[in-house]
């Protein structure tokens, strides 16, 4: 059998794809995580010997028969990948080298050169300008993400396990809310926010993010809970457990990774939001994105400061991605592969 081998030892969950299941089924299950799924192709031309050794399984036919044509193709593939890597990393390079230059070295003709000696002037100037806004963003994104997740979890529980007549239609109507251009609600939203006295404040912006986060958080949790066998709930019902007890004692203990996915997703989108923040907050309450855009739009600010500011703005979500990338990717899939 050459179609599959054991998952790589480095993969802690050790999940693998189910050969034979239809693509639609697997996608519909929405539990697919390309970071988890390991299917080793059996095309010996494409398989590197090292990979096989690491997976610790016997190799199908002729793993060592690398023809010259296969080698050339493989070389071309790596060359193309490398070009894309350069493209993806070029902006990061510019960010890093520019932010580490002293103002005297930030001239246009030295844009791609390394900073020497490196200087933290840019960072200290950017931090002085942006620190209050950085704090604002934390005060905004953390509560918004937590409250959104709790709300999404309860909604998902109802829509997955307590379906009522028209529940699916209602769900589709809720989902529409995540696709609308927010411009279509922005004008009356500012009116409503100032009527209730929340215009300009961080609290108001938190509320807005929670409301417009309902569709995506409900979607992710609904699909997450749909995968939990209903028999489990039925058994609990027979034992006399009600709506809340089932949630607390069955669903919630199984929800950890769902919460991680949703928390990351919401933290990410709230932290990176610009439109709501720019429209609904005023200066002392600006979050990072608005302050950065303002800083970068000013001709009086040196490039090293702008780039350092951009790096600081990107840092929290980048860190989350680096540490919890697996869950980040699962959120990406959950938010898009709805079935």
């Amino acid at each position, binding site marked *: 059998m*050459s*179609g599959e081998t054991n998952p790589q030892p480095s993969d802690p969950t050790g999940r693998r794809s189910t*050969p034979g*299941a239809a*693509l*639609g*089924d*697997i*996608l*519909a299950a929405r539990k697919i995580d390309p*970071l988890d*799924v390991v299917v080793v192709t059996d*095309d010996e031309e494409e*398989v*590197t010997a*090292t*990979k096989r050794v690491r997976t610790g399984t016997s190799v199908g036919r002729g793993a060592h028969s690398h023809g010259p044509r296969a080698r050339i193709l493989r070389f071309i*593939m790596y060359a*193309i990948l490398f070009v*894309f*890597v350069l493209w*993806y990393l070029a*902006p990061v390079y*510019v960010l890093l080298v520019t932010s580490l230059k002293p103002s005297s070295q930030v001239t*246009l003709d030295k844009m791609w050169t390394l900073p020497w000696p490196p200087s933290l002037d840019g960072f200290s100037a950017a931090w002085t300008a942006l620190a209050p806004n950085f704090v604002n963003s934390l005060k905004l994104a953390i509560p918004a993400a937590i409250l959104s997740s709790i709300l999404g979890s*309860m*909604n998902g529980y*109802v829509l997955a396990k307590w379906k009522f007549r028209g529940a*699916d239609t209602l769900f*589709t109507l*809720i989902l529409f*809310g995540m696709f*609308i*251009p927010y*411009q*279509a*609600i*922005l*004008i*009356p939203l500012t*009116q409503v926010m100032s009527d209730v006295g929340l215009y300009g404040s961080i609290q108001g912006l938190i509320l807005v993010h929670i409301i*417009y986060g*309902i569709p995506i958080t409900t979607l992710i949790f609904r699909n997450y809970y749909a995968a939990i066998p209903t028999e489990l709930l039925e058994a609990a019902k027979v034992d006399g457990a009600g709506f*809340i007890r089932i949630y607390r004692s069955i669903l919630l203990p199984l929800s950890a990774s769902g919460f991680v996915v949703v928390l990351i997703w919401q933290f*990410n989108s709230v932290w*990176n939001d*610009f*439109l709501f923040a720019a429209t609904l907050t005023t200066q002392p309450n600006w979050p990072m994105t608005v302050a950065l*855009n303002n800083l*970068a*739009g000013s001709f009086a600010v040196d490039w090293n400061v*702008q780039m350092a500011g*951009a790096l600081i*703005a990107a840092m929290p979500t*980048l860190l989350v*991605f680096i540490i919890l*990338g697996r869950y980040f*990717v699962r959120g*990406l899939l959950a938010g*898009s592969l709805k079935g």
Partner: protein
Amino acid sequence: MRISRDRATSLLVIAPSVLAIGIFVYGLIVWTGYISTVQWDTLRPDYTFVGLANYQAIFAQNRFLMDIRNTVVFTISFIAASLTIGLLLANFIDRQIRAEGLFRNIFVFPMAISFIVTGVVWKWVLSPGTVETITTAGGSLLVSRPQGVNQLFGLDPASNRWLTDSHVVFLAPDSPLYGFLHSVGLGFLTSPNIGIPIALFSLVIAAVWQMSGFVMVLYLAGLRAIPEELKEAARVDGCTEWRIFRHIVFPLLTPITLSAMIILGHISLKIYDLAVAMTPGGGPGFATDTPALFMWQTAFRDDHFGRGAAVAIVMLVLVAGVVVPYLVWTRRQEVEA
């Protein structure tokens, strides 16, 4: 008795969210629709009914026509480039490459960054630099100081204008197609308003940089869900790798391609952050302007709230035209499953 009490609790739990969506999504959309039919063009709300005058006003504005042209060009090139790159990278990554995780992370990390950061960096990289004329005793001298990509690749900033390029490619009257289009009654297609603004591609580069990794993730999930036996059977029958991809793999990826197109499409129809960060003024001759930017500036900078609402409703109709069929389609699939 138990069941009905639980049922009541469940409805009570979901009620606040349903109410919030009902008011803040559907209610406010209706309210925006109403605002688009009233006078309101100062800071103070003015609900004098004006019918469709705001819509007539925006469609009479050249800037809005440019925006629609830009949206079409941007959407098509953004989707095409993201899908192509995403599919290519997913295929490569699915081929047992070394350091797979590293490659994957490099391609996906831009998704964790805000469009504002992306825009700030790419604006700098895609600025052409300057060309100055210095007058000396012996005559005038052109001194070019290339910046960003121009500097990196030794290109001349005078001919590689990137974000600042004001050219719009459209059919010249002496091209054969021009006469043909006019003869078949499609002459309007040759209008400069329907051309392709070159500066817009700088925005496309930045947007594709941010989103192609996402498409890669989608395709990678799809590729890894395709049973290996299927490909193996084709191989036994003597199919080449290309034919397997063309006739087996790619058709199986159709649902993913469709999802990706919808998601990228609705992002590009309402793209705002990136345009603000890269060209807050809309670029040369509004070459990089977008409806979202126009809407925001019309309403919140110039206080023409009626007209801003009209732009917003046009945007909503465009997005709904893409998304509603998709939602209905996925809903049906779910019912079948």
